[in-house]
């Protein structure tokens, strides 16, 4: 049963990691739609 529980936890960790990672990689509307001279925040 241990691998099952570990897998569920890892799925959650991957989800948080993906959210953070994609933010970091720049897939935000700021990066996608705004030019160099344009900022959203």
């Amino acid at each position, binding site marked *: 049963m241990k691998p099952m529980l570990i897998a569920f936890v890892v799925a959650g960790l991957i989800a948080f990691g993906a*959210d953070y990672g*994609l*933010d970091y990689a720049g*897939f*935000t*509307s*700021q990066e*996608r*739609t*705004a*030019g160099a001279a*344009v*900022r*959203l*925040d």
Partner: protein
Amino acid sequence: MARAKFLVDAERCIECNACVTACKNEHEVPWGINRRKVVTINDGKPGERSISVACMHCSDAPCMAVCPVDCFYQNEEGIVLHSKDLCIGCGYCFYACPFGAPQYPQAGNFGSRGKMDKCTFCAGGPEENHSQAEFQKYGRNRIAEGKLPICAEMCATKALLAGDGAEVSDIYRERVVARGFGSGAWGWGTAYQMKAQ
């Protein structure tokens, strides 16, 4: 006011983008986001024409029908508004909208996944009129002040008309009659395209 409508007169629009700028300024729309855009066809060629496009506030709005959280509502003037508290930023309204009106300004994850923002016909949102919360989320509520949308009021050539649909079409009809052409002067293309052959 009866049914509120936008109308843009392609014979008058000069692509100055003042409507876009005025809108951004009035509502303090974030950088990189345009509630309104000016589109030019045949740029620099004979037959060049421009029109200004934003949310058309459709009678049977596809965005309202498709929204998974049902966050849209249409007020008695026919203006299509939405609640940013309910919006989940799924982008479905953009896929459904015929005019590409919805915008996603928040710097959230994934290309278009902030809370949706669009033209409100300067009518604010579900929050209390003139409240700070309403201004922050939806921009100024000019309709509640008894004014018309800023884009149309700003338009230097009066190409963009906004307001009571009946009055707007009266003005446009008068123009078309006066200039004798330009409202899809019927049959011209079909009649005169043969000239070139």
